[in-house]
């Protein structure tokens, strides 16, 4: 695994396993290095082990096997309150019986800071999240977005080097969530703090992260920056989980260098980039992003014929469902640009794409 963006590893998981019942491994052999100042997102469906990893890092769960290191120091046996890791919880976990100021002062008080120092730090943290005037309110008197800001401020007020966020935006509405994504990203850029962020929302992960670790079934499926992850998924799970994806099942009939020739069940063939497929004779799933498909002419080389099944008008583009050699869930996004092709339901068209955009991957 590669380490973080500027080279020096800050958080390290080495061969970490976790089981709750001694029968099923929730986390299977996790190896992960997170660089200092990196924004790393653990992305995956629920039950994929991402939250368990975060809880092990925070110290609320112990690893069944393996080492977790923070700044080169093993932290397996260090209790949570001595790890000095800031954490933002899904339900914010602001203490309801304390005012905003008291909530923020709490980590400073338990560290024995002087009163004046505490006050100035609390004020600075509140100003950072633009909540300077809300210090005397109780959490219950704040809106969801405001509580979220306070939770972020509280996790940062004692200047931790590492902040963990466990689906912090899950309870917010869409608009507010997008706004908070930018704010958290900016805070991260300004402070240079290392952030480990857990979410099941792929667009959130793409927006905010330096790198994304895609979790499924207790294993990291792919660890890469957002662009690589979207453009060059290494297996079918990542291709399906992130963004919209067309999949075409077929049998590999020939491999020439990095080009695989795939035969569909009706006998038609197609060329694809061999990424993660078996040898000749094995089945594979082809993955193509809908926006990478163009509608061409019958004389274009390697064109695939398709029949239009359904058209949905979406303003900036037209979503077109097609039947491609027996796969009737194939989606093409036709941009609503000047002079775009007019399509009619039932008509047969020809589709083209770059060979690199059609990736032959494993079967799920």
């Amino acid at each position, binding site marked *: 695994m590669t380490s973080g963006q500027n080279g020096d590893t800050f958080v390290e998981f080495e061969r970490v396993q976790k089981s709750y019942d001694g029968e099923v491994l929730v986390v299977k052999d996790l190896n992960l290095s997170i660089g200092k100042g990196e924004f790393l997102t653990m992305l995956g469906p629920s039950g994929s082990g991402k939250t368990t990893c975060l809880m092990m890092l*925070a*110290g*609320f769960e112990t690893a069944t096997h393996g080492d977790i290191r923070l700044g080169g120091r093993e932290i397996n046996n260090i*209790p*949570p*309150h*001595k*790890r*000095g*890791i*800031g*954490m933002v*919880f*899904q*339900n914010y*976990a*602001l*203490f*309801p*019986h304390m005012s905003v100021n008291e909530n923020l002062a*709490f*980590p400073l008080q*338990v*560290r024995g800071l002087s009163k004046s120092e505490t006050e100035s730090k609390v004020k600075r943290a509140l100003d950072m999240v633009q909540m300077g005037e809300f210090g005397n309110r109780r959490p219950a008197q704040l809106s969801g977005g405001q509580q979220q800001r306070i939770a972020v401020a*509280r*996790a940062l007020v*004692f200047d931790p080097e590492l902040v*963990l966020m466990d689906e912090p935006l899950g309870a917010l509405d869409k608009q507010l969530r997008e706004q908070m994504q930018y704010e958290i990203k900016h805070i991260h850029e300004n402070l240079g703090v290392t952030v480990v962020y857990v979410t099941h929302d792929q667009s959130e992960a793409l927006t905010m992260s330096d790198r994304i670790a895609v979790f499924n079934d207790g294993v990291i499926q792919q660890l890469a920056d957002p662009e690589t992850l979207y453009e060059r998924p290494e297996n079918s799970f990542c291709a399906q989980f992130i963004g919209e994806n067309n999949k075409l099942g077929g049998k590999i009939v020939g491999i020439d260098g990095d080009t695989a020739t795939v035969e569909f069940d009706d006998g038609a063939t197609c060329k694809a980039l061999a990424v993660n497929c078996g040898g000749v004779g094995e089945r594979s799933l082809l993955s193509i992003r809908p926006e990478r498909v163009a509608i061409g002419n019958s004389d274009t080389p390697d064109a695939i014929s398709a029949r239009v099944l359904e058209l949905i008008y979406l303003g900036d583009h037209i979503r077109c469902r097609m039947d491609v050699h027996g796969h009737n869930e194939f989606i093409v996004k036709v941009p609503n640009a000047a002079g775009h092709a007019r399509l009619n339901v039932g008509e047969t068209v020809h589709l083209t794409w770059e060979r690199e955009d059609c990736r032959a991957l494993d079967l799920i």
Partner: protein
Amino acid sequence: MSDTHTAAVMAADGTPLKARLARAMFRRKLDAFLLVLPLLVFLMVFFLAPIAWFLSKGFHDDLFATEMPNTTAALADWDGSTEPTEAQYAALVTDLIATRKTKTIGKVATRVNREHSGARSLFTSSARKAAKLDAPFKEALIKTKKAWGDIAVWQGMKAASRTYTIGYYANALDRRQLADGSIVAQPEQRQIHVKLLIRTLEISLQVTLYCLLLGYPIAYLLATLPNRTSNLLMILVLLPFWTSILVRTTAWIAMLQSQGVLNDLFVFFGVTADEARFSLIYNKLGTLIAMTHILLPFMVLPLYSVMKGIPPSYVRAAKSLGATNWTAFWRVYAPQTVPGIGAGAILVFIVAIGYYITPALVGGQDGQMISNFIDFHMRRSLNWNLAAALGTVLLVVVLTLYWIYDRVVGIDNMKLG
């Protein structure tokens, strides 16, 4: 906006909207009232009215005035210190003859005896002879019984003749109303009620405290365990709740008595000698042990429901912010359980303060509570007036404590589930 202030808003048919709304609201209120009416009638007839009638006995007693009308009239203007006159003696003799005929002399004698002890035999014996007496009645009565010349007897009658009296309340608070209406303290050896009330409050407070100390960890365990295990444990907590209180109290007798299970174990393990077994029951200790056990679920349940509602992320957040286990508990977890503590404490305390059957069975002498005394006056001494006064005093004390609690903690902070 401005015209809404000048003209009333009208409904579609032209009537003012407010009047329409009031009519609609009235219908709804009427419906609600009719729904609760049967229960209300039931409560009024079988519950509230008898209680009100009974409590009124604490200050209203017309037995003497009804049965001895002539004496009552003759004593009305008496100042309570001068020598009784012949007219008053004559009225007394008339009434004695009348009550002997109607066979109510016993009740009257008992009534006066409460004001002046020794009056009962005086009345009953003199009533037998009253018909044969001739004027002047003063000498004749004093001749039959010397005590009739004692002014204290007359003062007792004067006190008994008051229909509306604070005498019973005075008695309930260890005071006594003299014939001239003044209130003085009872003699030392008759001051029992205030001490009893204080002991009742003390036992209730102790039981509340022990329930909290024992119940808090259990509730915490129940709230944090996985549901399957906690449901099983919850049944164990509730099991005593479903058993008859009499059975449980009797079980404690078997456990705690000097030849009981616990003492046998103490002797067996050499904690104490066979001759010097601990007296764990038939005293205050027995009352405390049995009541704490019986009232524990009242503390555990509200605490559990409050603790169940506290997400584990609060304590986790506190720890991630650098708090030790103890700080996280004391500064973050415990303050959030205060509504549960308040609800549990007030529930246990109020049930405990009126507790009756357990102290009666295991309390012995010094484990008796005020309810046991009310019961004594209801069933043994048949002094219902004093029982009513004691009950009212207890009610007032509870309501006062409830009021103080509301001012200090706030009833809104209480959470029963």
